[in-house]
C-alpha cells in the first residue's frame, strides 16, 4: 500500500493512479474476452436465423393472393388478422393449453426429479423409464396418443372401462387430451433440468437443517425450492415458449378441430397449406411477438438476477 502512495505522489497530476490503470486494463481484456467467447454463438445464430426472420417480417407487409404478390399492404395484414375472430380463438386456445400444460408439467416434473434424486434400488432403471416419453419423436408420440385415446378402437376406453367416451371429438375433452399427451411427453424434460439443479445443492445444508429440527416440508420449502430457482426458471421459460408454439400434437391428434386450433396450426395453414406468404408471415410475426413478450416477462420477473449474477 505504501508503495502505491509514494508512486502516486510522483505521478503527473492528470494521470490515474497505477492500481486503477491496472484495473481498467483488466476490465478491457475481460470485455474483449467476453466478446470473443460470445462470438461463435452469435455468429451461428445470426447467420442462420437473422436473414429468414427479416425476410419473413418483410413479406408480412405485402399482400398476396395464393403465391402471387399483389402489392404493398403496409399494416393491412396485421389489421386483418388482429380483427379476425379465428386469430383470437387460436390465441385463447394456445394460452389455455400453455398455462394448464406447463403447470402440470412443472408439478409432475418436480415430483419426478425429487424421486430420481433419491438413492434406492433400481434408480437407474427408474430414471431411464421416466425419461422414455421424452425421447420418442413428437409426431410418433402424438400418433400413439391418438390411437390410444380415439374412440375407435378405444384402448384407453377399454382399459378404464369408459365405453364410448369420445375423447377427441368434443370440447373441452379434445384440448384436455392434448394437454394430457403433452404433459406425458415433456414432464421428463422438466424433470431432467430440475434433477440437474438438485445435484448442485450441497447435502450438508439438509444435514444442518435436520440437526436444527426442520421437518421434511420445511427443508423442501426453505432449502430445495430457493436453491432450485435457477433450474426452475430455465425449465419454466423454455416449456412456456415451447407450449405457446405447439404444432405437431394438435395437428396429428385433432387437426385443429373441436377447439384445438393453436397459433402454430394457423401459421402452418397459411404458410404451407394454402399458401399465402403475406398472411402467413404476418401470423408468424404476431406469434413471435407474443412468445417473445412472454419470454421477456419471464426473464425480467424471475431471471434477471439469477442469470446475470452480480451485475
Amino acid at each position, binding site marked *: 500500500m505504501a508503495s502505491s502512495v509514494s508512486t502516486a505522489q510522483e505521478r503527473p497530476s492528470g494521470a490515474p493512479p497505477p492500481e486503477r490503470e491496472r484495473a481498467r486494463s483488466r476490465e478491457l481484456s475481460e470485455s474483449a474476452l467476453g466478446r470473443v467467447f460470445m462470438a461463435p454463438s452469435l455468429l451461428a445464430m445470426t447467420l442462420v436465423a437473422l436473414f429468414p426472420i427479416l425476410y419473413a417480417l418483410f413479406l408480412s407487409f405485402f399482400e398476396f393472393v*395464393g403465391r402471387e404478390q399483389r402489392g404493398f399492404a403496409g399494416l393491412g395484414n396485421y389489421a386483418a388478422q388482429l380483427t379476425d375472430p379465428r386469430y383470437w380463438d387460436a390465441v385463447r386456445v394456445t394460452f389455455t393449453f400453455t398455462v394448464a400444460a406447463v403447470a402440470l408439467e412443472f408439478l409432475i416434473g418436480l415430483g419426478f426429479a425429487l424421486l430420481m434424486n433419491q438413492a434406492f434400488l433400481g434408480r437407474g432403471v427408474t430414471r431411464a423409464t421416466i425419461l422414455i416419453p421424452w425421447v420418442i419423436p413428437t409426431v410418433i408420440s402424438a400418433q400413439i396418443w391418438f390411437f390410444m385415446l380415439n*374412440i375407435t378402437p378405444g384402448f384407453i376406453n377399454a382399459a378404464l372401462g369408459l365405453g364410448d367416451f*369420445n375423447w*377427441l371429438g368434443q370440447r373441452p375433452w379434445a384440448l384436455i387430451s392434448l394437454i394430457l399427451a403433452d404433459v406425458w411427453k415433456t414432464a421428463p424434460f422438466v424433470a431432467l433440468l430440475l434433477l440437474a439443479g438438485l445435484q448442485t445443492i450441497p447435502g450438508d445444508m439438509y444435514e444442518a437443517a435436520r440437526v436444527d429440527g426442520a421437518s421434511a416440508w420445511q427443508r423442501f420449502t426453505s432449502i430445495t425450492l430457493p436453491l432450485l430457482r435457477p433450474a426452475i426458471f430455465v425449465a419454466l421459460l423454455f416449456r412456456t415458449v415451447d407450449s405457446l408454439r405447439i404444432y405437431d400434437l394438435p395437428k396429428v391428434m385433432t387437426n385443429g*378441430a373441436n377447439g384445438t386450433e393453436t397459433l402454430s396450426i394457423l401459421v402452418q395453414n397459411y404458410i*404451407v397449406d394454402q*399458401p399465402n406468404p403475406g398472411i402467413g408471415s404476418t401470423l408468424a410475426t404476431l406469434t413471435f411477438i407474443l412468445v417473445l413478450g412472454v419470454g421477456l416477462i419471464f426473464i425480467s420477473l424471475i431471471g434477471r438476477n439469477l442469470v446475470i449474477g452480480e451485475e
Partner: protein
Amino acid sequence: MKSRRHVLATLAVLTLLSTACSGSSPEDSTGGGGEGEQGGGELVWAIGGAEAAVGGLHQQVTELWNEQNPDSPVRIEILPDAADEQRNQQALVLQAQDSEFDLLGMDVIWTGEYATNGWVASFEEERGQLEDAGVLPGALESAQWEEELWAVPYNSNAGLFYYRTDLIEAAPTTWDEAVEVCTAGAEEAGIAPFVGQGAQYEGMVVNFLEYLFGAEGQLINEEGTESLLLEGDAGRQALEFMVQSQADGFYAPGFNTMQENEAVAEFQSGSAACMRNWPSFYAQLVGEGEQAASSEVQDSTGVTTLPTFVDEGTTGVTGGFNIGVNAFSENVDAAKEFAVWAGTNEEAQLLLAGGSLPPVIASAYDELPEGDPTLGLVGDVLADEKTGSRPPAPTWNAISQAIQQNIFAAYNGEVPVEEALTTLNDEINTALGG
C-alpha cells in the same frame, strides 16, 4: 496460450466435420449407378404413395415404357406417403424453378395451383389425342383449369359403399333406404350402422360433396368464379342429412374423428354394418390373401356404388392422380410423350387395373381383370352424370378449409344449417374472387 489452442482445436474439428458433407448411400456401394447425373434422356418422375414403392405399380409402368423407349428412360423419385408432403416437396423444387423433376405425380386438386404458378407445361395440343384414346371426360375435367389442359389423367378413384351381406339383403340405392337397412341390420348385431370419414380434414369434404352431388347439387360454376352452394335445395338437403345422421346415431360414435383407416378398422372388425370408403380397401376386407388375414368379415362384405338422394343412378367425387410436366424441365417434349403414353396406352392402364387402381380410359373398363368387383363399380360411378370432382382451383385449399370448418361445426350441432351454408357460400366466393 491455452485458450487459443482450444479455439483452434475446435475450429479444426469443425472443419473436419464439414468435409464429411454427407455419408454414403446404398447406390454408392453398388458402384455409383443410380443417382449421379441424369443420363442424356433420363426422365425423373416425382410421385409418392403406396404404388410408387420399389416393385409397385408405377414402377411396373415405367419398366414397360423403358423397354420400348430405351433412349428416354423414366426413373421414379419416391415422395412421402401423405399427399400434402408430396405437394410440399414438389413445390420446393418448382418454386425454385429447378429441373430436378421432369414428371410430377399430381393429385387431382392441384391442377389450378400448379397452372397459375406457371409450374407445368400445357397439354392443350395433346387434348385431341387424349379424347381420341377415350379418356373419361370426368378425369379430363380434373386435369384442366380455365379451359386449358395442364396434365394428363393417369389413374382415377371414387368412393364406394361397403355393407355387410349377412345383415343386409339388398344394397340400398338411396340414402333414406340406407339409413333404414343399415340401422336395422346394425340393431340385429348390436353394432353401429354406418362409418365414413367425418373428422375435420379433406376426407370429410369428399364425403360432404358426395352427398351434395347425390342431391344433384354443385359446388361451383363451370367458369370457377362463383359458388353454387345455395342454388336449389341440394346443399341444404346434404347438410341436413349429416346433422340428422349424427343426432340420430346413424353415424357411429366417434364418426367425427374418423379417417379412412379408422372407418375400415371398425368395419373389418365387425363393428359397423355399412361403410363409405375407397376401393383400395377391398383387398384387405375380402379374400384369402395375406392382406385380408385380419379381416373378420371376409365372407360377409358386399360392395356397391354410393346411394343418392334422387333414386336414380349413383354419384361420386373423383379422386386419383394426373401426370404433369415440369415447365422448367430440360426434357419437356420427351416428358410429355411419356405422360400421354401412360394415360392412354391400354397395356399400361390395364396394369393399373390389375393392381386395383381405377384406369382413366373407357376401353380399359371393357376388359377389366377378374376378381375385383370394385373396378367395375368405379367405372359405373365415373360414367354417371351426377359424379363430379373437387374443383382444382388454385385456392382449393382455402375452399376446402372453409368447407371443413363450417360443415364440421354444423353437423356436430354447433352451428345451425342455414348459417353454416351462408357463411360457407360467402367464404367460397371470397376464395374464388381473389
